[in-house]
């Protein structure tokens, strides 16, 4: 076992430094799927979350509870639901999306969206409590206050997006079901790790895992530094 772990680090190092083309293609697909899902979830989730934060309507409490619950939606369940929807025998089968990266993006969007909505709701609700009166006094009410609140909460919201990114890049259950783990088409880092584990190549599987964590670390470092620089410029 100890030799497996040592050899895993050597494998990870070799994969990253050696720029193995197959490995790079897998990394590129993983990033493309996860970042696309993140952008979709942000475009839909940030405004929705802000609206949920500042508006009052019957059933709002129940909506918040449902959204919070969906943050814990097991990826394999999200994958199964989408599988049944996107299957040729399902209601959305006509699009032929099953076993394509598009299906994987849809699955991860489904997983991230509740996180973005729930955390945006909390952030904007707090900001609204603080600045609501001021915003109202300059004529920004309801939906018109949403952009301002999102802008003011941008640093907290970056963390929400990073949480979403983390959930999507780490999950394997959903993309495995709707993507099918097809070599060269829908094989991501996590599904490769699952596959290599099942082939008994534990060193390679762990090596890929180390590379995945390294990649996530790099992305978080960039986001953190960008936030620091931006905060300094704002003053």
């Amino acid at each position, binding site marked *: 076992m100890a030799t497996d772990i040592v050899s895993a680090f050597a494998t990870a190092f070799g994969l990253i430094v050696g720029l193995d083309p197959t490995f790079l293609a897998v990394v590129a697909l993983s990033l493309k799927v996860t970042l696309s899902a993140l952008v979709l979830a942000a475009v839909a989730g940030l405004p929705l979350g802000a609206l949920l934060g500042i508006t009052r309507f019957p059933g709002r409490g129940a909506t918040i509870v449902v959204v919070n619950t969906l943050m814990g939606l097991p990826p394999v369940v999200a994958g199964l639901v989408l599988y049944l929807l996107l299957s040729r025998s399902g209601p959305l089968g006509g699009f032929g999306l099953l076993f394509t990266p598009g299906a994987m993006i849809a699955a991860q969007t489904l997983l991230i969206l509740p996180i973005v909505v729930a955390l945006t709701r909390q952030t904007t609700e707090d900001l609204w409590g603080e600045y609501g009166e001021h915003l109202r006094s300059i004529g920004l009410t309801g939906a018109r206050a949403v952009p301002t609140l999102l802008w003011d909460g941008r640093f907290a919201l970056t963390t929400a997006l990073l949480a979403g990114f983390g959930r999507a890049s780490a999950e394997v259950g959903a993309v495995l079901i709707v993507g099918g783990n097809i070599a060269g088409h829908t094989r991501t880092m996590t599904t490769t790790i699952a596959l290599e584990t099942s082939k008994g*190549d534990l060193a390679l599987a762990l090596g890929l895992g180390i590379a995945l964590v390294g990649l996530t670390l790099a992305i978080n470092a960039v986001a953190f530094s960008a936030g620091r620089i931006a905060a300094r410029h704002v003053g």
Partner: protein
Amino acid sequence: MIRIARRSLVAAVAASALVSGLAIAEEVKPAVGRSIVVASTTSTQDSGLFGHLLPIFTAKTGIEVKVVAQGTGQALDTGRRGDADVVFVHAKAAEEKFVGEGFAAERRPVMYNDFVLIGPRSDPAGIRGSRDIAAALRAIRGKGVAFVSRGDRSGTHQAELALWKAAGIELEAAKGAWYREIGQGMGAALNIASSMGAYVLADRGTWISFKNRGDLDIAVEGDTALFNQYGIMAVSPVKHPHVKAADGKAFVDWMVGPEGQKAISDYRIDGRQLFFPNADQPGA
């Protein structure tokens, strides 16, 4: 200040919407090249056979083959739902049922390999070197030695259930702590057997290419009951009009034709042949 903030936010949202729109458009746009989806088994994928066969087929026909590796039961269901153009599995009775239901016009035999009973070198059931799989299973049951079952309706799982039955053991009644159904693929079953020192039925191809053997070795092999036949079927366009019937048939014809059969017999790991083509064998 607020106005500037709002303007840049709107710009940011518009830009990200554009980016994601492009990403989606790229996904939805139909592939330029021809391609088919083949639902097959973990044993064919994990053994590396497809990595050997598919480039040869694609180079000849220009048809790209996307393999979704599942257990045989799940692969057949994928075909039933119309989510695959070709199904390539190993459970003859289930395949004939698939044809009988009209999901494929015909089943063609392709190749065989065999199952091997894998177990720890310490051989707690005392069966190592035997060629009698029924006696070996009775010994495992009798001594209550740990046995890992795929438990996933795969071809290997169905073969295992048939072997217990042939050994005269009523599994439902005999099941106990010794019998562990894991509901996972072949590799996962071998990993678990390796870590708990259990016996497990495996297809020889996956066993030969499996790397995490630990203390495991072949306990029983060579019994004719351990024969493992693979069959291939193009999903019927009558049931699912959208399937790529012509390209699917091209793949089936290639697999059972001389070139595919030769490519199968050419596939070796460490000099050992993993699969034996037999498309021309009647009744296979």
